[in-house]
């Protein structure tokens, strides 16, 4: 699995965003940061809260100059119907059919034949700055991911559980 410091593999995949199909490539992103989160399947009873959770927070991430990308092994048709089922999704859902991107990121579950519940935050140079993977029954905390993005963008030393408005660590410490 990719860890901080690794490079996110290059990709160019079909995606659905706001009900429309388009192709998304990592080189085409113009934001400062990017979030690539994998989820196992469309039309599942475990995944929906995360996809909709990121959707509710997409404006907050955009305010932090951070693009959000979701990905699963389902095809573009499934993504379109799933996004409609969830009331519309305002960020791209990538169709990683066959799990090639998930494999390249080290988050393909060979037993279940789906992507794991994994998240990567990366910068303009495609360098991973944050990565996490969750058990199948544990939904991610989008609030935590947003906190990490804000902390990273502050450029400062942030103590544990730092949130905007909290004190930073001493400026004379190297990190």
């Amino acid at each position, binding site marked *: 699995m990719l860890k901080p410091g690794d490079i996110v593999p290059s990709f160019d995949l079909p995606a659905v965003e706001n009900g429309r199909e388009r192709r998304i490539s990592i080189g085409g992103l113009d934001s400062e940061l990017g979030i690539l989160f994998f989820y196992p*399947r*469309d*039309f*599942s*009873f*475990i995944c929906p809260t995360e996809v909709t959770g990121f959707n509710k927070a997409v404006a907050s991430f955009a305010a932090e100059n951070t693009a959000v990308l979701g990905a699963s092994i389902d095809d573009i048709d*499934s993504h379109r*119907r*799933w996004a409609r*089922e969830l009331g519309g999704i305002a960020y791209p859902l990538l169709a990683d059919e066959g799990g090639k991107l998930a494999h390249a990121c080290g988050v393909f579950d060979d037993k279940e034949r789906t992507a794991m519940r994994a998240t990567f935050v990366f910068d303009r140079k495609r360098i991973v700055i944050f990565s996490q993977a969750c058990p199948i*029954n544990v939904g991610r905390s989008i609030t935590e991911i947003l906190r990490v993005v804000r902390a990273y963008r502050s450029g400062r030393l942030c103590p544990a559980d730092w949130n905007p408005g909290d004190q930073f660590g001493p400026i004379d410490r190297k990190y």
Partner: protein
Amino acid sequence: MQDGVLTTAGVLAGLSGAVSDHSQVLLAALASTAAGALSMGAGAYLGTRAETEVLRGELERTRREIERAPYVAQEALLDQLEKEGLSREAGFRVVRLLSSSPQTLMTTAEEKVFGLAGGMLGNAALDGLVMGVAFVGGALIPLVPYLLIARTRPALLAALATTAIALFGVGYFEGWLARRAARWRSGLRFLAIAMGAAVAGYLIGLAISPLGATAG
């Protein structure tokens, strides 16, 4: 019932080949009927009881699991429906609909995913009683004519004739239930297999009859 018919006809045929005394054959057949009814009844009772206890335990364990983590049942049911040919999207809608009633979700998951069903819980006492009574009912078919006719050979022929008619009737009825066109074929097949067993019993009795003479 079929067991009762065949076992009793087999005993009558086998003993008639080995023993010439009509009343001795009849007595043995009656004893065999009683023993058969009791053993079949006891076997059915014990079998149903064991099966019910195991099934009840499995159902309780499954229900606790579903109550603890309903999403596991939802996902498992969704996977099962997909395996059975339903598209994932359609399966999702079905499971979501079922989820509006937790009880319905539970029983559907139990049946489709775990292969369990509350309806499979049997009544051991009833099964035992029915099995025993059915055995006796079947045994009476060859026993009654054997009882009414005093001489061994005609009595045996009459017993075998009523047995044959009954077996043909069972086979014919099976064909009727299965909606087969040639029901008489079902009847004949059933009869051939069953009577084969009875004839074999008679021949075995003939073969071992010298042992009885030697022991006497």
